[in-house]
């Protein structure tokens, strides 16, 4: 596969390490009342869609950016590639 890196342009997927579902960005608040339950769901529950999937890829053999790649798991078509940092900020993460 070829991943169109937002900074570096098209790169072979061999340069990347795959992590998984991009919902791993949404790490729960440790001080929430049901933090244990939220962390359990965060860590263990994943959707496994046949179709569009937002997932995390690490450009380990490149610039070490974490990317959020929107990929169709059936056709392997890549619909969007974003810097994970931008996605994280957009989802309200900060420090």
């Amino acid at each position, binding site marked *: 596969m070829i991943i169109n890196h937002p900074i570096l342009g098209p790169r*072979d997927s061999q340069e990347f390490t795959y992590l998984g579902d991009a919902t791993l960005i949404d790490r*729960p608040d440790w001080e929430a009342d049901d933090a*244990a339950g939220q962390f359990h769901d965060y860590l263990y529950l994943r959707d496994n869609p046949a179709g569009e999937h937002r997932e995390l890829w690490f450009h380990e053999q490149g610039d070490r950016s974490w990317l959020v790649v929107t990929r169709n798991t059936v056709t392997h078509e890549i619909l969007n590639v974003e*810097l994970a*940092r931008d996605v*994280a*900020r957009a989802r309200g993460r900060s*420090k």
Partner: protein
Amino acid sequence: MTDTVMNAGMNAGTVAFQADGSTGARKGVQVNRLDGGLIKGSKALNFTFDGKRYKGFEGDTLASALLANGVRLMGRSFKYHRPRGPLTSGSEEPNALVELRSGGRQEPNTRATVAELYDGLEANSQNRWPSLQHDFMAINDRFSNFLTAGFYYKTFMWPAAFWEKLYEPIIRKAAGLGSISFEDDPDAYDKGFLHCDLLVIGAGPTGLMAALTAGRAGAQVIIADEDFLLGGRLNAETFGIGDLTGAAWVEQAQAELASMPNVRVMPRTSIIGAYDHGIYGAVERTADHVLAPEAGKPRQILWRIYSKRAMLAAGATERPIAFENNDRPGVMLAGAVRAYANRWAVTPDQTVAVFTNNDDGHRTAADLIAKGVKVTAVIDTRAEAPKVEGAELFAGAQVIDTKGRLGLEVARLRLANGATRDVPCGALAVSGGWNPNVHLTCHQRGRPAWREDIAAFVPAGDLPQNMSVAGAANGDFSTAAALRAGAEGAVAALSELGIEAKADALPEAEDAPINVTPFWYVKEGKGRAWLDQQNDVTVKDVKLAHQENFRSVEHLKRYTTLGMATDQGKTSNMGGLAIMAELAGKQIPEVGTTMFRPPYTPVSFGVMAGRSVGEEFRPTRKTPSHKWAEEQGAEFVEVGQWLRAQWFPKKGETHWRQSVDREVLQTRNSVGICDVTTLGKIDVQGKDAAAFLNKMYANAFAKLPVGKVRYGLMLREDGIAYDDGTAARFAEDHFVVTTTTANAVLVYRNMEFARQCLFPDMDVQLISTTEAWAQFAVAGPNARKLLQKVVDPEFDISNEAFPFMACGEVTVAGGCRARLFRISFSGELAYEIAVPTRYGDAMIRKLMEAGEEFDAVPYGTEALGVMRIEKGHAAGNELNGTTSALNLGMGRMVSKKKDCIGNTLSEREGMNQENALKLVGFKPVNAAEPVQAGAHLMNADGEVSAATDQGYITSAAYSPVLGCSIGIGFLKSGDSRKGEVIRAVNPLEGKEVQVEVVSAHFVDPEGERLRG
């Protein structure tokens, strides 16, 4: 007419062998050699088959040269060991598989039909004993009623115990075709990467026209063909293009392509797979056509081709008609017989008959007659067959059986009027129509569609991204249609890339329809009509599969093994499907096809491995002191990719334990030095560096003063202990952290994940500096004295100025920058000193020289391990992915006052039970007995079972300090059981040792030494 990639042609210098005075000489040597052809007749090439010497010509394949010499029998079938000859003249060949070359270069299951002849070629038949002519295993053929489809499934079901001991060894012995020599392959294989605007797959008329069109427009073009000669079917047919012969037009096209710097022509290159996003796999056979590769040159190259657009112009494969005993050597595809005659100037025999259901088969008769070969009959299944000149035509007739020992002698016909007729022939050219080579279109999700007018599947549905299909591969069989499709396809593909190309005036070419009437198999006979000749699947087997309800194509394939041989059923799948459709009362498209998967043709393991063999299998990382350690005669051990010194044997030491014990004692008594560069090092900088480390580690870092080091324990998000190391604070906003050797890459990856995905606004930067610093542990009571000689005098490293857990930047050896850490893994007074990697070799020599007066000893990973067990430090065996901070005795380190990776879930009830496993030490009651790592712990009395399991020993070593074997491990409520005597059991080896539960800190439990 068709541009199949199988029988193509190339080589600018190839000129048709002219029918001049030398033809007589040719024929004199080789009984079945004809006039003309595209072989070079000037020089004979010598080769052997089964030890017998033959001669052929440049441009021959092994199959064409053997046929020229009158050899039709080339192999034995897989199951019944039936005698077989070539069915085809290309890569789809099921029968003529041979062992090529010998020794380390021996290659089994090579198709003789594509093995390019060279002087000195050595080939042997396979799957026969004692010889091809007299094969003992042919007895299997007598038991064919017994060995039908599903034989293995039915026979070897019961009793289960027989499988491993009896059935499997017998089957394994009988299975397989060719053999390998078990010698190392002496040749090199390479891998490479190519990029292009347009990849053209196949260099027949379609592909050549496409490459010319795209090349003239200035696009970056790669055109690849598996054959050594470009041209595809143009080399196998007699019709021309424009005013030129097919071969001359190919030569002209090739010359033009060669003149374009933007076009890369790749003969002998198979495109083996279509992968995601326009990536194609290709195997180029750069030296399979010579005796041995030139020195330093690879035998084959595996290319990864990145294409913006690709055009599949892979042509079509002819399919046979099944009839009784249709597998005798001499029964061949009509297009192949024609190719042997026109391209290779060979006829399989001097008398040939033709059996066809379409007009194309008639071309074979016409071409052979023109070459002076006697055609004894043209048998056409159609009642309305075209007229034939020079041979007897039997319209509406069928071949119902054949005769001949080790080769065809007679074909028996059922005539239209019901009479039988025996026709003498040494070869029978069979045509059942042509199947477009759709394989690569199916490598992702494409499912071909049925086209009634040509009675074949054509590409359809979801083709691989940016692939188009043209010419015979798309079902357009005439040469004129192929040229048009190639040119127009290239224009269309390039216009999508914004490159303007023109489909220039196309040359004139034949445009005849194929006129096929589907006819799959002759119904008359016992059913020993062969579909898949390599796997010995007959019409009868398909009927049996249907009868036993294995009716879906996928079941049919697996039950009968149809299409599962090395040729992947290129000539047989269609027949099987059609018969199944007929039996099930369905249309062929309703039955569907099985999936085609890469590789298109078999690929050698050598080219897949490339240069990654032996020592080069993966990169080797050497420590900065490696050269010095080699000079000391060190034994090395692989730690991941690293090579580390394991111990340093001294003269007279005959056992590794002697070396290790000496290294431990000398370190504990004076001073030892160890290269610890392999530990991961990460530089953490930024205003929020401390806050970031607070998130990464279970324990707190915010209040760590500058100039101090702290041990850090890292958890996984599920609360399990992950990694440990130290974090040294060099400035308010600058830490240097270490990781274990094994987790260096992973910890860095996780930290980057946290930095970018979880805490994106933290002001913190990370850089891996593992390879930037050479780091040495200097441990033992004389460590400070030694270092005072190396560290420049302006730096005070006395105990007062530089106490335990201090760190700082210093200079050594008169100004070389260095980092000094007062940390200890051994439990001794110890330091780690780091210098830029390029000074690592000088540093180890300097340290050893300075240590001479203290009798300093270098120590390796074994002594390192012994000392850390003596001190009770956890390492990889203890941080094993199942243990928590609580288990490790570090529960209190997990801060409840802050958020960090893993702390929430580490509080789960199940991980905090009363009787949790705790890290403790173990000493044998009888000092002579060894403690074994991996042993399970049981109470002093009672049964030994999983239910009574009390824990396990993770690490063990002989302690030269204590004079006995010791271990550390996890014991239920271990911290409150010290003094108890329990059992360490190893049921696998029937061992049981009484051990006493003790503190894991065997040496200096109060930590006085490291603070001294």
